[in-house]
């Protein structure tokens, strides 16, 4: 009972927050709402016996990445989405197509739900072995991460390094400019 309530609470929060992120014209609010949705999603993760993931999500996403976004928003200080008129020179930039994207998204939802409804055996397939202890133990996570996925781990570390350098190079204003 309680967990059902929690689930609907958290998922509802997540969805609403995300929807508001999309519906928001002010990026500042969007960022904050996204943080909120992350918090709710962390709740979902905790409910899925993945507290570690939840906390990591908060630390990394909410604590670092979102702050970065916040910085950029504050730095550029371009709060309102500029209503730059569409140029109709190109068919692909017609407003209708923008809406068309939304239509596609709805279509995707329909498809996915249909797919879910069709897969009856989903629960059966996994119902049998669902003990929380396996997935919730951080030690187990660490073991798997650093033993079986160690190469991927190193690769991502290199990726991070490269991204860091790239970001610095990109954001540094060239000597030519002002």
């Amino acid at each position, binding site marked *: 009972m309680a967990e059902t309530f929690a689930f609907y609470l958290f998922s509802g929060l997540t969805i609403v927050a995300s929807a508001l992120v999309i519906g928001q014209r002010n990026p500042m609010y969007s960022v904050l709402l996204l943080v909120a949705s992350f918090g709710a999603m962390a709740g979902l993760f905790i409910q899925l016996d993945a*507290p570690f993931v939840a906390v990591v999500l*908060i630390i990394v996403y909410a604590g*670092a990445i979102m702050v970065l976004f916040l910085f950029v928003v504050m730095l550029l200080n371009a709060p309102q989405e500029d209503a730059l008129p569409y140029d109709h020179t190109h068919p692909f930039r017609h407003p209708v197509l923008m809406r068309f994207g939304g239509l596609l998204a709805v279509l995707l939802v329909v498809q996915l739900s249909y797919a879910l409804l069709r897969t009856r055996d989903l629960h059966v397939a996994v119902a049998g072995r669902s003990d929380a202890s396996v997935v919730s133990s951080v030690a187990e996570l660490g073991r798997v991460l650093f033993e079986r996925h160690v190469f991927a781990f190193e690769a991502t570390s290199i990726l991070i390094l490269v991204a860091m350098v790239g970001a610095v190079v990109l954001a540094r204003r060239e000597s030519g400019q002002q």
Partner: protein
Amino acid sequence: MDLTLVIELLIIGVTFFMLINASAVLVLAERKIMGFMQQRYGPYLVGPHGVLQPLADIVKLLFKEELRPKGADKWLFTLAPILSVTAAFAAFSTVPWGAETTFFGLLDRPVKLGVTDVNVGLLVIFAITSMGVYGIVLAGWSSNSKYSLFGGLRASAQMISYELSYATALAAVILLAGTLSVREVVDSQAGTWFGIVQHWWIFLQPVGFIVYAIAGVAETNRAPFDFPEAEQELVAGYNTEYSSVRFALFPQAEYINMATMSAVATDLYLGGWHGLLPFYTPVDPLIEQYGLGWLAFLAKVGGFLFFYIWMRWTLPRYRYDQLMHFGWKFLLPVSVVNLILTAAGVLYFNG
């Protein structure tokens, strides 16, 4: 509705109460110590030796007018202080402050002194403290004032930078203790080495402790790292435009954070409620026996807080770039090296 549950809820309430009062106490203590260090009295009018001074301050703040600058973002301007203080309070939620006790057999089963205890407590602390950034950033941004903005930017930059060293330093302790639950870390420090020295991690992690202390100071935007509110440079930083209760919440959050920092330091390095002094003393068994560890805990936290204040009134303020260089180019490498060495040692002795 058995007694134990009541007690547990009571403990939560007590913790909350202590945190609220911590700010008041700390304000007074700060001013007293400042006066003492500057060869003067400090507050002494309100109440005996001015102990009621914080009360007076609070009343004054409550009755001030609530100003909101023109062009400020209404919601965020209000949200910012709430966020920060909430984060401050929440951060303490996984910090235990006393051993399990039955209160001299009063209860049928022991209760843990502390709000809650999750198996990733430390990470939760990180997470929530990192949330605290938002309060300051938003405060700075939403009040639509350049001083505030700079203060906010500085604050968030500083907090993010030092959070790394801070977390890395703690990671070393986590390696030693082999758990993420704060309570277990504390319990891993029970006992002594050779019956002489307390089995505290500080003795194995001196570097880590120093790094943690420095980073903690920066994390809480305290002097000598109090740039977000550097009066000489930007009037009062992110809370320039605030007044009344909204303003009151920021110092509140700051002091609570200080308390949290000290508590965490105590729990992770100073053995929490295990042992009073760095070396074995006859009182230790008594403390254990009568479940008075929380007193020792309070003592250590108090000591740490005194160290905080002492540092504030002793050291001059850094320059901002120096701060950043120090954080990124010295503190972080040191803590990382420390972590690696610790990992190697753990692997060598336990693996």
